[in-house]
């Protein structure tokens, strides 16, 4: 892990309350998703973002509307951060017609034109060249936008990633490659899977600059992303941001995470939790008291409860949906 930064980062009451709320929404949503999975209401695959909330929240705070975001299968947090509805995401997890993909995509496969969210991809690393393609579209259209491509430390060993990095630097694409280094590629620790563990250096041979960021500190993520976004947006090409983060839960719901110690997990939870970090600052600055924070939590719990109710009651997709959206002509 990157050492906790001692520098006090600039923020405002309004901003930090907002970021705290965003991260808490992801946390509570994911906790509930985990429960629903345990109850059998969510089937198949479900990868929780708990512990990593500061990464997407901080990135989202630093980019502009219309900048694209694309990520892997651990995607619930990204969608919530972008303002996609908790109802639509939860109903997709339960496979209902009210879900973003009418239940046919599932946890790993959701999209939104309105929020410039390009998925939700279930193949490790496959989203990375697509994200470079979004950058190439931006450059070709000269639209002033950047694409943000998220992938994990596991995906960082996929060959496609290096094809994309080479192209992105060759063509000076406005693309940020954001590595969410949560230390484990499913059950394989980075030490056991990766020859060069400093993933921010992975672009050096292409000339892609990289920085390592404390991904548990939402303000550090925000600041690093702002700098990188300015770099990419002004025509200097891509950058890598290695976000040092940690997932508290297993890779997916079927993973008991026996490849790491209980102590390691509790150390991260107790000393580096991104939400606690924001909370402590809010209290210290007297921007909120415990009652105010409780009210935020209550409000978020009601949003999540509403999403759960929707996800339980939204009907399953009609069998006629089986053949819709395969090819354009079929659903016409």
């Amino acid at each position, binding site marked *: 892990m990157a050492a906790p930064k001692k520098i006090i980062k600039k923020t405002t009451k309004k901003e930090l309350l907002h970021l705290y709320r965003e991260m808490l929404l992801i946390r509570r949503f994911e906790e509930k998703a985990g429960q629903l999975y345990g109850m059998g209401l969510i089937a198949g695959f479900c990868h929780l973002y708990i512990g990593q909330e500061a990464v997407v929240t901080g990135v989202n705070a630093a980019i502009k509307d219309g900048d*694209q975001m*694309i990520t892997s299968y651990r995607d619930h947090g990204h969608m919530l951060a972008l303002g996609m509805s908790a109802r639509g995401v939860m109903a997709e997890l339960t496979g209902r017609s009210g879900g*973003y*993909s*009418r239940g*046919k*995509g599932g946890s790993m*496969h*959701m*999209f*939104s*034109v309105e929020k410039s969210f*390009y*998925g*939700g*991809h*279930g*193949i490790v690393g*496959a989203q*990375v*060249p*697509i*994200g*470079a*393609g*979004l*950058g*190439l*579209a*931006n450059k*070709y*259209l000269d639209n002033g936008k950047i*694409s943000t491509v998220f992938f994990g430390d596991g995906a960082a060993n996929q*060959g*496609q990633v290096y*094809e*994309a990095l*080479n*192209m992105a630097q*060759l063509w000076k694409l406005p693309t940020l490659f954001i590595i969410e280094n949560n230390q484990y590629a499913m059950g394989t620790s980075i030490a056991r899977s990766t020859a060069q563990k400093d993933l921010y250096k992975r672009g050096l041979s292409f000339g892609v600059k990289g920085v390592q960021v404390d991904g548990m500190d939402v303000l550090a993520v925000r600041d690093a992303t702002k700098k990188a976004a300015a770099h990419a947006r002004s025509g200097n090409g891509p950058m890598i941001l290695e976000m040092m983060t940690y997932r508290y839960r297993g890779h997916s719901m079927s993973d008991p995470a026996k490849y790491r110690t209980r102590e390691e997990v509790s150390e991260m939870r107790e000393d580096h939790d991104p939400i606690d970090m924001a909370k402590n600052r809010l209290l210290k600055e007297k921007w909120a008291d415990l009652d105010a924070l409780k009210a935020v939590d209550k409000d978020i719990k009601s949003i999540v409860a509403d999403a759960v109710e929707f996800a339980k009651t939204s009907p399953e997709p009609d069998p006629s949906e089986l053949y*819709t*959206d*395969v*090819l*354009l*002509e079929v*659903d016409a």
Partner: protein
Amino acid sequence: MAEAMKQMNMIQAINSALDIKMSQDPDVLVFGEDVGYFGGVFRCTAGLQEKHGLHRCFDTPIAEGGIIGVAVGMAAYGLRPVAEIQFADYIYPGYDQIASEAARLRYRSNGEFTAPLTIRTPVGGGIHGGQTHSQSPEALFTHIAGLKTIIPSNPYDAKGLLIKAIEDNDPVLFLEPKRLYNGPFSGDPHMPARNWSKHELGEVPEGHYTIDFEKARLHREGADLTILCYGTMVWVAEAAVEATGVDADIVDLRSLMPLDLDAIVKSVNKTGRCLVLHEATRTSGFGAELIAEVQQHCFYALETPIVRVTGWDTPYPHALEWEYFPGLERVSEAITRIMED
């Protein structure tokens, strides 16, 4: 007023289709290995960079997963990229992007996103390319739901179908039989080579036109036998029909997915006999799909078992190319056998 026509080979017809779409639509970009400065190893993109600019027609690294992945991203954002994979044999590193991403984007985004990209790639043997420059992998793609697979057999169809592919809002895999680039091919390498310069299917409108998918072309009309084929094998079928003197329907499928089942059923119900041809390996080839459909829909009209002539279940050999290739002799023998049955 009659439209201006020009004699073209298949390379020129493909080039013309790309040029027209690039001129009409700024969303159309053409890229791939050596397609820009060099103009493509088969010259299909010659002159496009010069005419339309470096930003519209450009060279990529040799990275097929990256090329197709980038095309998917551009297409998801609303552009109409046309990516060239230099040989279909090189497409496998990009297969993940085709099967898991391009073909699936519409379905898993509730129809919000589409991937209107075209992937052009030369297929087939007959140029002594050996096992990595001769394959016909169409069945690997017709097996993927969410993808269209097109394979023209002549310059006229190539241009009209390619323009249609670029304008189509779904991902299209456009397979170009490289042995037909310069002329029709009988399947007998010892016969003198023909070219498109005097052939009626080499007579191509200079301007814009499209050919609908899912419409097979009746290459030759006959009464006694139906030959289902596509790409290079259309010309082998023609030569074999001439050699055997059998009066056959030659159905050039052109579009494998979507498939013109009506045309197939109509022909077989008329003739009562069916021969299926492809250059690709036999087991699980597209011919198996055709045979399944024909037996289901034409069972009571069939007078003989359906026969297929295909490549062997081996890698494409360099030395024994003409033993592998389902050429004039093998197809003629099969025709004779069916008619005697």
